[in-house]
């Protein structure tokens, strides 16, 4: 069986500075989203249990060939990449179309893992769209995945509750960050990542035309955090102030 993990290349958010409330992306290297790394880690655990192959799938610009080494170092066996410089800033529907087309090229896919949302836009749409295109069931917000014969038992983390569901393979699963702690790769895993098998295709080869951008970002501003400069003289006053602000005791 093959397990697929879809991972998105995003700017390293720790290195993004904010100037005049605008994010500055200059000189910011690419990385993979944090929750995507949790999905990868979940994939590694399933791969070991199922003796399967773990394939990372991603679509992005030319930097992706380098960025994906991070996933190959952290446990993916192979990479299937859709690369084109027009894929720098695509809308979720295009991403989903490309990723679904890529997954169709891979045989015997049993489990397709996603992070619940990407680290940059966090639209949380791609997994559901891919499941729809591939006509597969989708289980969202997994905080625990357990093998149960030929099916999976998945604990879903919902806002007010947890839900335990059982799903037959093949299936799409999105994970939440609590599912695991993504591993830190060792030195040789990093150094050998670039030598793992990698297939690179263009959207054209997948017979997908990238239309003009349908989503235009009108404004992307960091929230303003003005300090309120409230001075309190006692714990009681602090509690009162926080309650007044609606921060506690809701």
């Amino acid at each position, binding site marked *: 069986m093959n397990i697929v993990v879809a991972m998105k290349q995003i700017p390293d958010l720790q290195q993004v500075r904010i100037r005049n409330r605008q994010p500055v992306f200059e000189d910011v*290297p690419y990385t993979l989203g944090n929750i995507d790394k949790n999905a990868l880690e979940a994939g590694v655990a399933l791969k070991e249990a199922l003796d399967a192959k773990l394939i990372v799938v991603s679509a992005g610009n030319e930097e992706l060939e380098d*960025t994906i*080494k991070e996933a190959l170092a952290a446990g993916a066996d192979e990479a299937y990449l859709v690369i084109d410089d027009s894929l720098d800033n695509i809308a979720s529907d295009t991403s989903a179309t490309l990723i679904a087309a890529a997954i169709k090229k891979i045989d015997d896919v049993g489990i397709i893992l996603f992070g619940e949302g990407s680290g940059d836009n966090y639209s949380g749409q791609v997994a559901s769209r891919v499941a729809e295109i591939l006509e597969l069931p989708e289980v969202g917000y997994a905080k625990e995945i357990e093998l149960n014969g030929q099916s999976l038992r998945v604990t879903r983390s919902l806002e007010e509750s947890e839900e335990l569901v059982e799903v037959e393979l093949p299936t799409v699963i999105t994970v939440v960050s609590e599912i695991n702690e993504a591993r*830190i790769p060792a*030195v040789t895993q990093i150094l050998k990542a670039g030598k793992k098998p990698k297939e690179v295709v263009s959207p054209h080869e997948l017979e997908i035309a990238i239309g003009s951008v349908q989503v235009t970002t009108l404004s992307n501003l960091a929230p303003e955090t003005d300090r309120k400069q409230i001075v309190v003289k006692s714990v009681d006053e602090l509690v009162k102030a926080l309650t007044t602000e609606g921060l506690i005791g809701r």
Partner: protein
Amino acid sequence: MDFGFTKEEALLQKMAREFAEKHIEPLAEKIDQENEVPKEILEGLAELELFGVPFPEKYGGADGGYAGYVLAVEQIARCSSGVGMIMSAHTLSVGAIGVFGTEDQKKKYMPPCCQGKQIASFAFTEPGTGSDPKQITSTAVKDGDSYILNGTKRFISNANFPGPIVIFARESESNEITAFIVDKFCEGYSISEPWKKMGMHGGPLLDVYLKDVRVPAENVLGQIGQGYPILQMGISFGKVGVSSCALGGMLAAYEEALKYAKEKTHRGAPIAKFQAIQLRIADLAMKYEASRWLTYRLGYLADNVKNPAVFAKEAALTKTVVCENSADVARISLDVHGSYGAMEDYKISRLYRDAIMGPQIEGVTDMQKMIISGVILKG
């Protein structure tokens, strides 16, 4: 000329940083107070293969070169100089076995060291001499197929961990300095209580007592009487680690100053608004950038040694600039903190105690300058 990192180098740096921030930084104060690095940290370093970064895979290493090693040690030492020093002294010793050892010695000693199952030491300093190894008084007397070692070694890093120790002693027949690989804790090997250092806590420093330690002749490292060049070359490689350690401490001190300058307010405005603080921030940046590139370059040079004397000069030069800058940066950062910097509650006070020690290790600054000018004037 391209001063960028490859993706692999960037990932190696990021990996070490992530490990250090997650697993070392939260314990850094505790390490400082207790002068001991918790076992879990050493196990974590071993798991990530950080005890064998520059060495060939054939001998259990990660094949990441000294260029990769400097990036890793900088990030580890950024969170704890003591942990950085354990790696540095260990790698120095394993490196000497790697360069001068026989195939059998390399196969026996390098793999457990690279895997972090053993931690190595390198012992030349004695109560009577540090800067001048020609005055070494420990003795090695031939007895059949073995040598009997006697003497005292001072300030030996990692002497308390099981593993090999490269010991320099005067061989009686040739009357020349000779290097021996000894298994720590063999019969006749004992250690003092750890020295209470002013900084770099957690990096253990002990005296080693050799009382009729029997070492088989096959454990001579290099040739009889060849100890001096081994020592010189070993220490040159050691300076790669010491420079990286000092660089990591420097980065931490620089970051502390930046943070404090933006946070601490005076009449409602951050002290970073004062020109005096701004000038200091510039000084910190200049010293860090200059040191950083010298250190990374030294890593590259260590992977490509052509002429040992030239490498010795470059290593001495880098170690001196970086350790002196590191001490300066800690001092400037402490000044930015004012009196708060002198309080143990503030991280900079620990970083200062760590940094001030760099110039004293592996040859004091004066001796480095003798090496540098010696090579230059010889032409």
